């Protein structure tokens, strides 16, 4: 992955960049590659299979998409996810379809040349480039907690997004603030959606996101020139439309009430449901259960651990990874003990009042009877 040299050539010659079809043909790959790639992507995105032909035709006509990848407060896990998945497979075609013009970790150049590459890409593809962001943006204390080339993350984001076609927030940090945003959020980290209001935005959360989700979404934008259908958290519905629980192969055990109670009991060995061990599958919207990881090898639940719900906002603050979903958050012990003491005191107090009241009443009654008796004896006298 180097910075795009063909882009510069275009500026000087004024020629249109070649289409993806030309590019593959130059390498002796036929149009069938598009069909196969489109068939796979359409299948991943649950598009009607007949859409694959349309998608292939559009892809062939498309030109290489300029992509600027900004990394802010992040761990590079998202980039690792995308690149470590690399076997020479069909998914890699996406790397031929895009021109990654700026990416700290992957680009060859550094320093001023790197920033130069970003500004050139912005100039040459004004209004057409896609900005991918991984990591959250710190805004506390003027954003000094994360700076690149003398600029705060916020300044770089604002400058770069200004002429972009769309913004893709990759990973949970960019989508919801992520780990830097965790309580007590010392750097004032915010998600991209808080800062980018006037551009189309796609969130691809996950810690990290599934590589096919990233490549599939980019292919969709590339071939249809628009943003896929999104849910209320701006996630593509085709990848985040269903919960892990709904697609989990262990679901029948949940329905039958067969649960693992600890990580090494009989239930765990038999592959029973991990709900009681804190699995967040029922509230986590992602494709892990069907697409799986490492080229379809496995996913966390298949490996024996509950889902952490990493594609959901604030997943680390949902009361602990090993607390079942149906339990309350936080420790109730002292509050309930306090409530018990207060309740008991209240009960004792009201009983004491009632006793006192009753005593007085009885005393009055007796006195009254005595008086009456006295009066009667007087009368008799």
């Amino acid at each position, binding site marked *: 992955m180097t910075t795009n040299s063909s882009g510069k050539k275009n500026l000087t010659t004024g020629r249109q960049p070649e289409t993806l079809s030309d590019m593959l043909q130059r390498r002796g790959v036929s149009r069938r590659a598009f069909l196969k790639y489109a068939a796979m992507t359409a299948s991943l995105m649950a598009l009607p299979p007949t859409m694959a032909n349309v998608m292939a035709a559009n892809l062939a006509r498309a030109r290489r998409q300029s992509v600027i990848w900004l990394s802010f407060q992040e761990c590079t896990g998202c980039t690792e996810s995308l690149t470590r998945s690399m076997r020479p497979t069909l998914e890699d075609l996406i790397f031929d379809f895009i021109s990654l013009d700026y990416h700290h970790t992957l680009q060859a150049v550094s320093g001023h040349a790197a920033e130069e590459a970003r500004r050139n890409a912005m100039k040459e593809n004004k209004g057409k480039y896609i900005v991918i962001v991984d990591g959250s943006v710190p805004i506390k204390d003027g954003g000094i907690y994360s700076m690149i080339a003398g600029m705060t993350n916020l300044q770089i984001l604002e400058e770069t997004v200004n002429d972009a076609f769309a913004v893709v927030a990759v990973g949970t940090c960019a989508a919801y603030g992520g780990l830097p945003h965790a309580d007590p959020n010392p750097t004032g980290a915010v998600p991209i959606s808080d800062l980018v209001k006037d551009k189309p935005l796609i969130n691809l959360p996950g810690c990290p996101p599934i590589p096919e989700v990233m490549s599939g979404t980019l292919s969709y934008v590339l071939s249809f020139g628009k943003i896929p259908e999104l849910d209320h958290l701006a996630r593509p519905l085709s990848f985040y439309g269903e919960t892990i629980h709904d697609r989990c192969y262990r679901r029948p055990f949940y329905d*039958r*009430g067969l649960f693992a109670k600890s990580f090494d009991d009989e239930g765990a060995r038999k592959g029973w449901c991990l709900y*009681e061990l804190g699995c967040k599958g029922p509230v986590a919207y992602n494709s892990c259960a069907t697409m799986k990881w490492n080229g379809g090898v496995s996913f966390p639940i298949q490996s024996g651990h509950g889902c952490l719900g990493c594609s959901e906002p604030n997943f680390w603050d949902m009361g602990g990874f090993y607390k*079942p979903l*149906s*339990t309350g*958050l936080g420790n109730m012990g002292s509050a309930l003990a306090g409530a018990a003491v207060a309740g*008991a005191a209240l*009960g004792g107090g*009201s009983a004491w009042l009632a006793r006192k009241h009753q005593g007085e009443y009885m005393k009055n009654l007796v006195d009254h009877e005595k008086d009456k008796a006295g009066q009667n004896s007087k009368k008799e006298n």
Partner: protein
Amino acid sequence: MELLEFARGPALQSAMVIFVAGVLWRIIGILALPFISIPSRARKGVLPEGEVKGWFEGIWRRMWPHKSFIRQALFSTINGHVYHIGLFVVVFLFAPHIAFIKDLTGLSWASLPSNLVNAVGVVTAASLIAALIHRLTNPVQRLISTFNDYFSWFVTLAPVLTGLLAVSHLGARYETLLAIHLLSIALLLIWFPFGKLMHAFLFVVSRGATGARMKHRGAQI
């Protein structure tokens, strides 16, 4: 997700605090009252142990109506048993509920298959609705019913219905349904000590005391 966090956190916590404090207030408030001794002499042969026996008999015998009332009370008795047993099964034998109790108290026990609990939940909901219809159509019951009865009925049915919806993912996303379910339970817990639902604890005291007194007087329990 914020709604679910609120429901699992502050809502449920404050509701449980109110529940525990309220229930203890009422139970201790009643039990610590001066014991009213019965001035009359006990029937011949009724010893103090006999009165204790009367206490338990009183609780047991009132599970089923006396034969002279059986025709009028048959439906409400059977229907009442159906939803009481149903509520017990749904509340205490559903795995996610046991997980909740285990998290709170450390106690746990075996659960029933989720599908079976769902079925019981449907029967329970239907039975509760039948109870309301009976209450509304029976002139005597309708006359003696107050807001307390209707509201207690509502806060009992709400968690059953929202729980069924959450399990079957009907109407909204699961996290929203789960949050609404937890909020409906919070409402139940808050209302519990102050309304007629308190009978869950007090029926032992009221039926027992009645039984003991009737035994003392030599009446049929």
